[in-house]
Structures are given as C-alpha cells and as structure tokens.
C-alpha cells in the first residue's frame, strides 16, 4: 500500500477531470460519443501544448508571462509565412525558439526577474504578430489542418493527441537525464553547478524546449481555427499557468508533473463546455470558471493535508 507522492499529486486533477466529464455526460448524454468527445476536447490540444511549455519554464523556477502573445505570434507565422513560403516560416519559428533559449540564459546571467523580462517580450511578440498579420486572416498549412482534423479509429484525435503529448513530455521531464537536471536546477541550481553541470546550458535547453512546445501550440491552434489573428491566444498566458497549478505543479522547487499539466489543461477546457451545458448566463461564465479553479485547489489542499498526516504517522 505504498503510493508515491507523485501519484497522489495526480489523483486530484484526474478526479476533477473525471467528475466534470461525468457531469457533462449526465447533462448532455449525446456528448458521450466519438464526435461529442472530439468537440469537447478539440480546443484542449493547443492549450495542453502551451501548458507544457509553461510547465517547463516553471520547472526552473521562472514564469513566462509572454506565453499568450508568443503562441499568437506562432499562430500568425503558421497561418501566413509557413503557408506561403515554408522555408522562411520554419526559419522564423526556429529563430523564435533560439530567442527563447537566449532569454533563458540572459535571465540567469544577469539575475533578472523572469516575470519582467517575459513581460517585455510579450510586447515584442505582440508587435511582431501585428506586423506579420495586421488584420485577422491567413490560411492554415495543409499538414496542420490534416493533423488536427484527422479521425483515427475508435478514439478521437483530441484524446490521442493529449495522451501522446503527456507520454512524450513525461519521458522527457521525468525519465530522461536532461529532465532530471532541469528539475534539479529548479530545486537547487547551485548544487547542480557544483556537480559539474552547466546551468546555463540546462536553462538554454529548457527554454528552447518550452519555445518548441509553444510553437507547436501555435501551429495546432491554426490547424483548428484555419485562420489566425494577433490576439488569438492572449488568454493562454493565464490558462497555462492555471493548468500547471491545477495539475499539481508548484511555482518553485522544480516540482512539476507533465501528465498533471495535460490533465489540468483538459480540465480547464472542459470547465468551459460544462458551464455552457449548465446554461449559466454568459455574464457569470468567467466567474464560474474562477470558482471551479478555487474548488479544485481547495480539494488539493485537503488531500495534501491528508498526505502529510499519513507521513507523520
């Protein structure tokens, strides 16, 4: 009867997801189908990718306030340049990932607060997005459209994609040696450095990986919406942070959970659908989303206390 604390961390997010899903099915039995599930979770894929990106940044004790504008920027590039001149588009996206790596290094070298640097970057990404796509429009690249609208047998694409994202990031963050180093930097960067590793290199890698996932989020988003605009993903900044926290991650100490983060993103997406099924007046939808967030976190607190009591016994 030994459950690791990592598993316990996953119980609450998983249970709230199942509970919400059951509630949705109860109110709208027709949602319990291939198409229903696909519709419910479709928008979760880009949010899950952005949440993973945010989680990577949070694993080295930083916070990325530019996530929303960066995903918007990537969506704009994907809907325009990646479509018309793929080589240039790929080059720009690679440049953006490299920029993320540079930001990670600069924040470390100059001991800058990540919140402020990424705040500044959010203006930069927003400006670039406006320059690339001054008015809403563009077309999704064929491959993105194909992936996001694919209909695999038995299980809808949105679910397949979520499981795939969770599995891949779990391998990188929890199982690979790079993942261990990354969480080590979040836990105690000085001891990682004393052990002979380059903290700069690890941070650059972490930020670049986060950039990569954010780029994928932008492409996935365009694949779903078929067009983009410069403000398309602004709410992703807060959604991604909330997703990580919902999934059992912490702001400091390198305590993160990729599977939890994906579940957190799914829960947040489902909460939106749940509220519209409840026929709650649109006025109160944002507020109810806040309330759901509070309830889930309260549950987590209760469970953490239980966990502590068991440990002390």
């Amino acid at each position: 009867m030994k459950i690791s604390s990592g598993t316990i961390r996953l119980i609450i997010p998983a249970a709230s997801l199942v509970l919400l899903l059951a509630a949705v099915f109860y109110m709208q039995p027709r949602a319990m189908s291939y198409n229903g599930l696909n519709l419910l979770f479709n928008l979760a894929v880009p949010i899950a990718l952005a949440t993973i990106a945010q989680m990577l940044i949070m694993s080295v004790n930083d916070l990325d306030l530019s996530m929303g504008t960066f995903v918007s920027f990537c969506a704009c590039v994907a809907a325009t340049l990646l479509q018309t001149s793929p080589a240039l588009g790929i080059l720009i996206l690679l440049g953006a990932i490299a920029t993320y790596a540079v930001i990670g290094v600069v924040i470390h070298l100059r001991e800058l607060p990540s919140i402020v640097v990424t705040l500044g970057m959010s203006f930069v990404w927003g400006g670039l997005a406006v320059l690339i796509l001054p008015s809403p429009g563009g077309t999704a690249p064929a491959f993105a459209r194909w992936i996001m609208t694919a209909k695999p047998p038995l299980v809808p694409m949105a679910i397949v994609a979520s499981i795939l994202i969770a599995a891949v990031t779990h391998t990188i963050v929890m199982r690979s040696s790079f993942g261990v180093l990354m969480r080590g930097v979040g836990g105690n960067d000085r001891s990682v450095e004393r052990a002979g590793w380059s903290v700069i290199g690890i941070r650059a890698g972490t930020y670049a990986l986060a950039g990569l996932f954010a780029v994928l989020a932008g492409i996935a988003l365009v694949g779903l919406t078929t067009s983009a605009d410069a403000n398309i993903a602004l709410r992703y900044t807060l959604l991604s942070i909330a997703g990580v926290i919902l999934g059992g991650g912490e702001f400091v100490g390198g305590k993160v959970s990729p599977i939890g983060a994906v579940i957190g993103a799914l829960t947040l997406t489902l909460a939106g659908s749940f509220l519209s099924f409840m026929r709650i007046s649109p006025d109160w939808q944002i507020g109810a989303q806040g309330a759901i967030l509070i309830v889930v976190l309260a549950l987590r607190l209760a469970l953490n206390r239980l966990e502590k009591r068991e440990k002390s016994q």
Partner: protein
Amino acid sequence: MTIQRLLVAKPWIWSFAATAIVWIITVLFTGGASSFGLSQAALTFAAFSVIVGIGQMFVITLGPGNIDLSVPATMTLSGTLALKLMDVQDGMIVVGLLASVGIGLVVGLGNYILIKLLRIPPIIATLSMSFIVQSVAIWSNRGLRIKPPETLAEFATSGLFGIPNVALVALILSAVAWVLLEKSIYGRWISAIGQSTFAARMTGIPVDGTRLVTYMLCAVLASVCGYLLASFSGGAALNMGSEYLLMSIAVVVIGGTAVAGGNSNIPGIWGASLFMFLVVSMLNTYGFGAGVRLILTGTIIIAVILLAGGRQSGR
C-alpha cells in the same frame, strides 16, 4: 565611483533620466510646440499608472510570489458600480467614492482569504478572484454607459495651476504611501516580511495581518483608480482596466523595486509611469505603426531592466 554608488543606492534615478531623455526627444521632434500639452497628458495618464502601481508595489514588496492580478477587474467593477450608484447626481460623489473604497476592501479581503485559507499561490488566488469580480462587473454593467456626475467629471479632467487634478491626487497618495513605507512600523514590517517571512514571524511581526492589510490596500488603490479613470473618461467600460495589469507590474519593476521583495521605492514609480507614457507618445509622434510601437516598448522595458541590473547582490 560615487556616481556609480549613487545610482546603485537610488535606482529610481534611472527611470527619471530615461523619462527626461524621451521627453526631450519628443519635444525636439515637434519643435517645442507640444511641450506643455505633452507634459500635461503625461502627468494625467501617468497618474493612473502611479495609483495602481503603488498598490502593486506594496504587494510585490511582500516577497517572491506575491502579486495582485485582480487589479484590472477591481478597477472595472469599482468604476462601473460607482457610476451606477452616483447616477449623474453631484450629491452622490462622496457616496460613490466610499462605495468604491468598500469594493476594494471586499476584493482585497477575498484575495487574502483565498491565499491564506486555501493556501493558493497569490498569482492563482488573485486570478480566480479577478474572474469572479469581472463577472460581477459584466453582470452589473450590461453594456450601459453611465456618465459621471458633472462636478466629478469636471474635477477629473481639469487642473490646478497647470497640473492635472488626477496627478495631484496621485501625488497626495504617493506622499501618504511614502510615509507609510519609510516612516511607519507598517512599512518596516512589509520590508521585513519581503526579506524573510520566517525571520519576520520569529521576531513577532504579525505577518498575516500585515499581508492582509497590504492586499486590501492594493485593491483599494485599484478601485480608487477605477473610480477616477471612469470619471476622467466619461464612463466605465468593461475593458477599461485591462492595460493596467501589465502596466502596474512594469512600472513597479522599472521603477527599481526589487521583484524578489523586501525593497521598494515610490519615486521610481513616478519615473517609470511617466517614462512608459512618454515612450508610447514619442513613438506615436514619429508615426510608427502599432506593431513597431509594441516591439519598441518591449525592447525598451527589457533594455531598462538589463541596464538597471537585476536583484541587488547580497541576497
């Protein structure tokens, strides 16, 4: 060497120097014709950033992780409800102000209850709270645009001896905040908590009470700012607070307050607020488009942070 030491000891000098440079560049471009109007506009708009910035500064001083994301929603709710309550009657101005202060107190209390009782990180607690506050604002506003009472609108848009009234209000609030921070035991307490919560608790500082008051203070300043902004712009709008989320954090940090907490300064907020407004108007004067303007604003924020250096050493 002494100049360097002065710059390190008084980080707000940076923001004022930057402000002066941007002001001169802008005025030079227009041939000096706009210097008075530009200064007045800068003071007016900086005043709003200063008021929310001071509140945010107190919260950030509490230490790592402390931040109030409910500022925009509180501004919107306060502006909306106050104008609705006043209903264009001059006699209700004070009642409206009291109501908006009350809203601030309630939101601040709610924020801290979430942080303390549910042990939610402040960033998530204030975010959830802001969702709820925003919903209340949407529900109460219903897209109506109620005008502020005439006397109040007159007050908010005019000035005394060429200085806008809102700037005077912000100045008085900053003076009060400065006294609170530098001369009162409360100011010592929040700095102590920001430097080490554990040590502060050990020395017998009422940590929870101090933090509660700080979150309430921040929310009250945000709602007073919402009240003034709604009066200034002739009515409340649902998105009127949105730009002040990033702005309130940016002015605090550019102004030289340590993001790690425990060290704050008020003159810097003025410098940073004036600077942020002047940069945007300078870029406007030069006729840049929205995209370039955003990019340059972001680049300048990062450049200022890089120049001013990060956390002070010794931590």
